[in-house]
């Protein structure tokens, strides 16, 4: 166990830090979640510097580095508060799937531009009838010569409204059990017949969408993996998803510690309240536990092991903690806590925003319940859920809401 940088790591860190200091000085630092042009420019600079997709091969535009170097760069970049959330789904989930399943020409066409931030990708899996049960999706693709024609509806598609491309899971055979009739494709989200309608979410913003398909024609060359063999491809994407979205962003123990030093409690600052201190300690322990668990995962990766389902821990713990921290700060305001105006609330409304975002985080990318099932079944080897739909043709399955 050695938590300090090795010599090579220290050298890499120093170089990354120097590069960041120099490049950010020119770039105009700061968070810009609503400024895509700035986010893209920053991504392009990172790619030029060899700091985008650090673990990917250089021939694909990556950095040709190690998982630990990627962590080191992430730590250094975090000190500068620049934002890359536009690219998480594409670079974390979609493009790795393209790299694993597309032909060489397709990879050459798409991987580089995605790494440079020129093109943004979405993941079109969920549907009104298939969320946790992803394999229950109904959007269908019918073969027509060298093409496929897609009809149906996706939902909760993050970023579709600003994305260029997507990977889409569709049903190609309804006459076999549900997992056996799915196929994965990549597609151009600007193609004729695709309509993207932003959904107004409970937190106020619109980060996800409904996506409608009406006779959308795509070439068979856009297929990722075998016909009716899409479930395996989807599992590959979902495995990467758990690694990509393990951390929550948003407020953490450090933020509420700083807040509590200023905020009033019953007698004196909130930070002196014994009950509050006990909870703060538990948040700290969780956050440190996650940070160190991630380091253990990276250690395993750097020894050539693949990320396992155990990385499901991250989202369960982080999402619930975010909800708890946000709400604790809101409640600490007593009556004042109902005010969510960023101009009037602590940390420019960050605690209120966390309270309103956390419910989504507990659902997106697998609900708490599904992630616990995954841990129970794939890590602890407990029996699977009862599957009444296992041997039935998809078209004969009962449907509900």
């Amino acid at each position: 166990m050695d938590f300090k940088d090795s010599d090579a790591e220290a050298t890499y860190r120093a170089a990354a830090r120097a590069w960041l200091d120099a490049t950010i000085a020119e770039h105009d630092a700061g968070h810009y979640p609503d400024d895509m042009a700035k986010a893209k420019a920053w991504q392009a600079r990172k790619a030029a510097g060899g700091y985008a997709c650090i673990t990917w091969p250089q021939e694909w535009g990556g950095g040709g580095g190690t998982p630990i170097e990627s962590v080191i760069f992430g730590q250094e970049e975090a000190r500068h508060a620049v934002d890359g959330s536009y690219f998480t789904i594409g670079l974390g989930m979609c493009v790795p799937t393209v790299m694993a399943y597309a032909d060489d020409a397709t990879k050459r066409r798409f991987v580089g531009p995605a790494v440079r931030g020129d093109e943004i990708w979405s993941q079109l899996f969920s549907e009104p009838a298939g969320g946790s049960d992803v394999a229950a999706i109904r959007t269908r693709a019918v073969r027509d010569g060298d093409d496929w024609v897609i009809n149906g509806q996706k939902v909760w598609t993050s970023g579709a409204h600003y994305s260029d491309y997507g990977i889409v899971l569709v049903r190609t055979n309804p006459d076999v059990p549900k997992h056996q009739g799915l196929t994965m494709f990549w597609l151009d989200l600007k193609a004729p017949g695709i309509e993207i309608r932003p959904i107004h979410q409970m937190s106020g913003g619109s980060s996800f969408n409904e996506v409608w398909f009406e006779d959308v024609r795509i070439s068979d060359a856009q297929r990722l993996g075998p016909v009716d063999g899409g479930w395996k491809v989807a599992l590959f994407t979902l495995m990467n998803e758990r690694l990509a979205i393990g951390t929550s962003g948003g407020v953490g123990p450090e933020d509420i510690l700083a807040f509590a030093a200023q905020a009033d409690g019953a007698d004196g600052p909130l930070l002196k309240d014994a009950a509050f201190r006990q909870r703060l300690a538990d948040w700290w322990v969780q956050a440190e536990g996650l940070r160190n668990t991630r380091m253990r995962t990276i250690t395993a990766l750097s020894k050539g092991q693949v990320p396992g389902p155990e990385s499901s821990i991250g989202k369960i713990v982080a999402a619930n903690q975010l909800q708890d921290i946000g709400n604790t700060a809101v409640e600490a305001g007593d009556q004042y806590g109902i005010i969510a105006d960023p101009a009037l609330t602590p940390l420019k409304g960050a605690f209120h925003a966390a309270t309103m975002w956390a419910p989504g985080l507990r659902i997106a990318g697998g609900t708490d319940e599904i992630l616990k099932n995954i841990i129970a079944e794939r890590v602890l080897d407990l029996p699977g859920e009862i599957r009444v739909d296992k041997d039935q043709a998809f078209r004969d399955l009962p449907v509900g809401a």
Partner: protein
Amino acid sequence: MNFDYSDDQKFLKDEARKFLAAQCGSDRVRAVLDDAATAYDAGLWKAVAAQGWLGAAIPEAFGGLGLGHIELCAIAEELGRACAPIPFASTVYFVAEALMLYGSETQKIRWLRRIAAGDVIGAFATSEGAGPITARSVRSTVSGGTLTGEKIPVTDGDVADLIVVLARDGLYLVEKGAGVTAEVLETLDPTRSAARLTFTDAPCEKLGTENGIAAMQAVFDRAAVLLAFEQLGGADRCLEMAKGYALDRYAFGRQIGGYQAIKHKLADMYVKNELARSNAYYGAWALNVGAAELPLAAATARVAASDAYWFASKENIQTHGGMGFTWESDCHLYYRRSRQLALVAGSPAAWRERLVGQLEMRNAA
């Protein structure tokens, strides 16, 4: 960066597990539990001493193996998993660590070799009653080279040869003998003994020059990391037991491990255990290299491990149903031990408070 045991450390840990599986089955733990007159398993103590484990982190110059603290952590994890009924923690994590931290050359030469050899059992006497230890709660005093006061409870106080005592103005070494009486106490975990120790003008020797509470806390920080590994080992064993039972037991026509209420319970145990493991590793590193982060890392490791072990030990019983509530089931061995370990270096509440205090200090700096 490397957040895992090395291959050598893994080998040591595997060997320790095999050794304890052979030497410390639950029948041995129960023998101590069932016999009120037996404080610990003397045979196991000798066997563990022969393995060199007592001196794993003690420098070779003082008769130890001089391996380091990460190796000691690996051993601690296995002792916790086996619920070993021996005064290992008192002797090694508290007394040997106190000597290594504060002992004069003479004190170290005099005691560490005998500790490593298994010839001396130690105890760390701090508490004087209910509630956390504070400058005001300590009434034991020293004057003219003798100590007077009462300590309750002192884990392994009834069998200890060498006692490190917290008095008002510092830590003191006291040898069992004239002026020291021990009364055995009934405890939640009878596999680990405890006593009320009364000191009446007992000859004593100062250990280090630190103020009492600060010195005690420095020893607690070190012990907390090592205890966290025992707790982790115990918590892992509870999860394994629960999993085994969930696969063997059928209800309503299927394995109970197929029901989500049980699956999610076990997943929750797993999550807590893994967070505790990660925090324990960080603590082990801080202890091993003497990092400035040790007090914060130790508190983090201890809170996580106490929480994980408590949860795993209680939900293990729940998973076993009525069987889990019987004396015959091993579940209660771990439930008891989880309480003993969570309190022996101060309560989880006191450690949460210490953790936040450390954060405040760090932010003020």
